[in-house]
């Protein structure tokens, strides 16, 4: 009954979104405001309609209505109510619906807030955004419907899933569901998927505005960039949080001692982040100097295509095998949609190529402009390398028939040098002035950070001669850190001497006066912290493994692990837990008990290794229970990792969030930002929609 209401509501939402798309394009094309108005009303209604469907799925999950195939698939009686609710985005059907729901929510906010500001763009903003929404709702309705039921044909071995009763089939309600994939039964489930989806869908808004600007010919002005600036930041920070939470989840759940494995699913998320970050930067060039306008368009088109591609990769399983692609209509539908929107956007861009002329010229290769262009190139090069490495196994399988693996060594070797230069640019770019930079001044500005970083590196290098690579890494980190600190110090000193403020007030006012700039620096500091964590992971990570009898010890670095015993007990969520008790010693001194576990999910027949971690600011000791001799519990295998500096990765993530909050903080009207762009477009008659 509830599910039927959800299904009806979903179908109406689909009709409304299709109507909104058509009506808004028609209204824009014929300049008929009443059609656009009507499209707006229809779009606003899509969110409440989808909310009803989402609530219906949540309710069905909560009461365990196993007649629904989706509920039987991702929930089970053994799962806690909390996990049953998160199962909304635990499988394909639910997560596509969830995507559409968030998208519709964003669209409703846009239409309620920005309606009067960009009247000319609105018809096409609605059209483009609702086309995307309609696609996702359409996929939910026709291909991967969460309200599909299980049916049984007399004599058939397998169950059929269909929304309506097929002729001759009997409804089938299983006693219990399969339950969520054990790896997803974790508290992180509440954070990582929703933030990722918020990030993915958030980028649709700037994309829709960009396309609207192209269609109306308003791309000459950069109004769309100003309107969507905060949207872009919000989308970006959610995607960033999603990536960090994903890394943390991998570290806590996947049991291999790391947080980033260059897995296709991780890469699929990383790709739009890379182009989105490049977009955030190139937009600054347009705002400050009226340059890189075509580039912005290309980047936002790429970001949009890659967010849909990311959903495609994570939801169709195409990467694990070409054969998974053909199993359902979902893969082809996504591929066609990505292809059509990508080609459509590009041809639109080329038809408006002339409106996107740069308003200023490059005055010197030695300028912030040139650094920005180089930085954008690096982001794109990394994007290409990651994309190519991610899809290459597929291409190889299609072309030569051999399956190959493109693992972490490839990505580290190819993107490592590019990241090195990128982080270096991050440190020096603020020292370059817009337009042109005198080499002598630049040298003077860099001298102190450079010499100081050399000093630090020399001292470090002397104590860590074993790892030459780490010396380069540490030089990079210390140089960029000092360069950013110098920027802060310059501003502080000016305020403290000029206005005789105390350091804290000066810092607060400095950030308050130009929060975008200093917020950006704080984000950069966060990146530097993360790089430090990556250096620890790349060069100083240690691991060892051994089988121990009770009382025996395993040694790694200054830490010693003593195995005390093993016990098993039934756990929650339908798992059998085997838990080892061990004692951790540092330099012979007892620190604490560690209890690494192996949870066996009986229904899924799947083991999950739960690490025990002793975390300090300097390093994590990460212990895994690898195995034990069946029957006689006297020889147990442990794997022990020493992960130095890893906590800088998470701290860096927090700094990035803080920096984004500072940067996105609404500006007070007094400080209107300086821009060198003189708008010729404003002086001329506005080009009409039709021309």
């Amino acid at each position, binding site marked *: 009954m509830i599910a039927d209401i959800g299904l009806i509501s979903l179908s109406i939402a689909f009709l409304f979104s299709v109507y909104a798309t058509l009506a808004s394009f028609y209204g824009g094309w014929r300049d008929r405001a009443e059609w656009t108005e009507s499209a707006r009303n229809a779009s606003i209604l899509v969110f409440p309609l989808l909310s009803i469907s989402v609530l219906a799925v949540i309710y069905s999950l909560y009461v365990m209505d196993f007649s629904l195939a989706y509920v039987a698939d991702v929930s089970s009686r053994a799962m806690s109510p909390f996990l049953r609710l998160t199962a909304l985005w635990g499988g394909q059907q639910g997560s596509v619906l969830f995507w559409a729901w968030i998208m519709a929510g964003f669209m409703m906010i846009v239409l309620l807030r920005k309606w009067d500001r960009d009247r000319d763009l609105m018809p096409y903003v609605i059209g483009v955004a609702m086309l995307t929404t309609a696609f996702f709702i359409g996929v939910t309705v026709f291909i991967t419907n969460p309200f599909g039921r299980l049916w049984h044909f007399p004599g058939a071995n397998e169950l059929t899933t269909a929304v309506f009763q097929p002729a001759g089939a009997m409804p089938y309600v299983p006693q219990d569901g399969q339950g969520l994939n054990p790896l997803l039964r974790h508290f992180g489930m509440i954070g990582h998927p929703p933030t990722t989806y918020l990030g993915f869908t958030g980028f649709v808004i700037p994309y829709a505005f960009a396309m609207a600007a192209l269609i109306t010919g308003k791309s000459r002005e950069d109004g769309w960039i100003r309107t969507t600036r905060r949207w872009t930041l919000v989308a970006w920070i959610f995607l960033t949080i999603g990536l960090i939470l994903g890394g943390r989840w991998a570290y806590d759940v996947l*049991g*291999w*001692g790391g947080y980033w*494995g260059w*897995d*296709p699913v991780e890469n699929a998320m990383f790709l739009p982040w890379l182009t989105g970050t490049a977009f955030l930067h190139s937009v600054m060039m347009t705002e400050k100097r009226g340059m890189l306008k075509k580039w912005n368009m290309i980047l936002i088109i790429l970001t949009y295509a890659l967010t849909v591609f990311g959903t495609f990769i994570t939801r169709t399983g195409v*990467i*694990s*095998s070409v054969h998974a692609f053909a199993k359902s209509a979902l893969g082809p539908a996504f591929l066609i949609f990505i292809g059509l929107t990508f080609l459509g956007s590009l041809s639109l861009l080329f038809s408006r190529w002339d409106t996107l002329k*740069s308003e200023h*010229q*490059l*005055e010197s*290769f030695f300028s912030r402009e*040139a650094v920005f*262009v*180089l930085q954008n*190139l690096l982001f*794109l*090069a990394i994007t*290409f*390398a990651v994309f*190519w*490495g991610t899809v*290459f*196994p597929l291409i*190889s399988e299609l*072309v*030569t028939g*051999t*399956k*190959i*693996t*493109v*693992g*972490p*060594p*490839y990505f580290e*070797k*190819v993107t490592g040098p*590019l990241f090195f230069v990128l982080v270096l640019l991050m440190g020096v770019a603020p020292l370059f*002035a*817009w*337009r042109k930079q005198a080499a002598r001044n630049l040298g003077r500005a860099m001298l102190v950070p450079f010499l100081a970083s050399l000093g630090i590196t020399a001292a470090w290098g002397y104590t860590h001669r074993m790892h030459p690579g780490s010396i380069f890494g540490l030089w990079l980190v210390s140089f960029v850190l000092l360069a950013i600190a110098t920027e802060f110090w310059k501003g502080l000193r000016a305020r403290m001497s000029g206005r005789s403020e105390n350091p804290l007030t000066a810092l607060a006012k400095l950030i308050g006066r130009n929060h975008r700039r200093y917020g950006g620096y704080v984000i950069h500091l966060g990146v530097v912290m993360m790089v430090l964590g990556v250096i620890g992971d790349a060069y100083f990570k240690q*691991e*060892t*493994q*051994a*089988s121990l009898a009770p009382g025996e010890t395993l040694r790694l670095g200054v830490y010693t692990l003593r195995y005390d015993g093993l016990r098993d007990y039934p756990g929650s969520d339908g798992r059998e837990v085997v838990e080892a008790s061990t004692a951790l010693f540092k330099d012979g001194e007892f620190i604490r008990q560690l209890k690494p576990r192996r949870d066996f999910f009986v229904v899924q027949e799947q*083991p999950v*290794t739960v690490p025990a971690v002793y975390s300090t600011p300097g390093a994590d000791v990460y212990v895994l229970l690898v*195995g034990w001799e069946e029957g006689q519990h006297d020889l147990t*295998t442990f*794997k022990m990792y020493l992960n130095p500096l890893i906590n800088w990765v998470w701290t860096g993530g927090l700094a990035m969030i803080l920096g984004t909050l500072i940067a996105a903080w609404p500006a007070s009207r007094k400080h209107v930002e*300086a821009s*060198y762009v003189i708008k010729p477009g404003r002086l001329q008659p506005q080009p009409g929609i039709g021309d």
Partner: protein
Amino acid sequence: MRKLTPIPYPLLPLLLAALTIAASFFAVAVVYAQTRLPTDDEVNAIAKQLYCPVCPNTPLDVCETQACKDWRAQIRDQLAAGWSEERIIDYFVTQYGERVLAEPGRKGFTALVWVLPVIAVLLGLAVVWQVLRSWRSRQDLQVETSISTPQISPEILKRIEQELQEMD
């Protein structure tokens, strides 16, 4: 192959003597030392470079399936039999195909995975260089045209330049 560390000269005769004695008296023990069971760390060092042949995207050293345990045991046996690292990896490639390699090869079609990003970076640099240069040359053109608008005196231009600089 790692080279053996040379043994300090004065120790050599002593060591030889000790070995001879050990060999003559405890021949069994010497054989045992040569075929001692490889440690888990030695096994993992090799398994790390391989991917599980059956599960998607899982390195062999962390894979938890029974099949992977058996493969790790196989690596241990091969090490015990004195196989080199290369030989073991080659064995897995011939047995299960190229997909067991964490790092893709550099021969044949697979070379494309390495080559294309490099080409892309070079191409990108070339394009950026061209674009930057064209921006520069357009500026040269503008300087010429600005000569025909003599209303702005060089001093004022200079002041504007200076103030623009200070705005940042």
